[in-house]
């Protein structure tokens, strides 16, 4: 079983998001970087499947040279191999991103190293386009199902579950297949210091993909949504605040 997990490097924002002056990006001066929780689960699942069925787990990202950091995080989580589809760091459209990933998968296939299962996050943390996985699948002519929170591989097929109110829908796809997953799929392991150190020494394959031209969806600017800053009434400090809490619950909010 060869499994590919695709992930995207994104800023790890905190309590407030600051934009650059031209409103094109998040100001990352004081921020670290991470990947979407969905993608962490994709990496974990790839590693678990390979632990169970043998084969190789590959983590791939398309982005600037810095994005190698997130690929190394995946390697520290015990992915066998890392790939960087290196760009100048500008954000690529879903169509171009998918085109480059599909091309890489096709090249691997021609070299005899095809993947049985491609895993994606359901949506990237920053762009939330909900489509790169679907575009890759369609381009490769593979079946895909998205929004998956439970997955298992059995007899050349993947059984995938999507949550619905009070239950789940079950899909069965013949391999090779593509699945876009959501957080909750598994509990991603915590990479030990030692694993991180080792990951730093491992080679990451570099490929420079060609960017197609497309008009697509073109960013004009970003903005922070307006939030009404509510007046906060401090009900008190410590347990002495309890009578006030009860009064608010009873008289003001009428919930008890």
């Amino acid at each position, binding site marked *: 079983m060869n499994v590919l997990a695709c992930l995207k490097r994104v800023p790890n924002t905190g309590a407030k998001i600051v934009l650059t002056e031209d409103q094109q990006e998040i100001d990352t001066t004081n921020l670290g970087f991470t990947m979407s929780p969905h993608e962490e689960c994709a990496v974990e699942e790839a590693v678990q499947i390979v632990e169970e069925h043998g084969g190789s787990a590959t983590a791939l990202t398309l982005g600037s040279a810095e994005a190698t950091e997130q690929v190394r995080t995946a390697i520290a989580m015990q992915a066998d191999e890392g790939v960087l589809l290196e760009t100048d760091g500008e954000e690529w459209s879903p169509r171009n991103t998918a085109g480059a990933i599909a091309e890489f998968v096709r090249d691997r296939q021609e070299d005899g190293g095809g993947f049985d299962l491609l895993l994606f996050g359901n949506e990237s943390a920053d762009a939330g386009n909900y489509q790169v996985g679907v575009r890759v699948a369609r381009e490769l002519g593979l079946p895909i199902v998205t929004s998956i929170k439970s997955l298992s591989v059995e007899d050349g097929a993947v059984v995938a579950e*999507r949550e619905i109110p009070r239950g789940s829908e079950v899909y069965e796809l013949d391999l090779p297949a593509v699945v876009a997953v959501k957080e909750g799929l598994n509990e991603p392991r915590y990479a030990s210091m030692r694993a991180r150190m080792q990951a730093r020494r491992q080679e990451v394959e570099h490929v420079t993909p060609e960017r197609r031209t497309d008009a697509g969806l073109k960013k*004009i600017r970003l903005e922070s949504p307006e939030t009404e800053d509510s007046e906060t009434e401090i009900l008190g400090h410590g347990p002495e605040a309890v009578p006030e809490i009860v009064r608010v619950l009873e008289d003001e909010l009428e919930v008890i």
Partner: protein
Amino acid sequence: MVLIFVEHDGGKPADSSLEMLTLARDVADQLDAPVEAAVFGDGEGLADELGQFGVEAIHVVDYDGVETYAPIAWAESLDQLASAVEPEAVVAPGSERGHEVLAHLGASRDIPMAANCLDVTVGDAYEVERQRWGGTLLEHARLSGDPKLLTAAKNELTVAPAAESAEPAVEPFTPELTDDDLAVRIDRIEESDEEGIPLGEARIVVSGGRGVGSAEDFDQLEELADLLDAAVGASRAAVNEGWRSHDDQVGQTGAKISPTLYIPCGISGAVQHMVGAKGSEYILPINTDPEAAIIGHADYAVIGDLHEVVPELNETLRERSD
């Protein structure tokens, strides 16, 4: 014409589809064009309801096997219908199926799609306002392609009937599909035996974060929830620590909640947490740090150690109910 993809449960349109109709009607008004709907499965009874929302025609996709959800077959049907009726835009709800079906349509036609739109200005290219970062940021962007593909953000647009209701014509549409198109489909439904109040429907939610400190210390929050008829939620930090299951997580990659009252305990108020909680009418955090971001988002707040405040509160509420 604006073609919409409507999800329904036995003829009752889903809330997200009705929200989407607000956006679709706005696009149609700007184009001075009608709205027509594509539906799958038994659409009996939809005509009345959709008519009130200004839908002028309903195309019921008629093909053996598409009554159950099959994303590729549904997208292919929508694609063929679009070829027949030539809409200027195709709009879907920002639901799991809405995103999935429209992404397939975008992929098979090799045209762009804008997800989670809040506002659209039509033109040669459309100018869209859409959510990024799960709603933490907004993006203004230019969308090209023919037709324009849009999904509408969930829980953001007001459901509103049209000023003038319509009497939609209901017409069957028969696509040409192959077995391959139907290869991905719901094989079966499994029911879960989860009890308790689902997070999304709870009137009060009591949540715990890293400040709770351990899985055992969540007992106090469970007790408080019990006393208040509330559901228990958690931050991602608490889930990552293994103290709670991911089903309890509130936020960008967890549940979006809209209770009357939200009581976050030991939660700092990161943007990714707040996008899940912003539907709350009132927020009352308990936190040791008066500078925590969550306090700024709150209506009421208690500054203090939750391990002291919550047991005392439980005690008082218990006495009160006796």
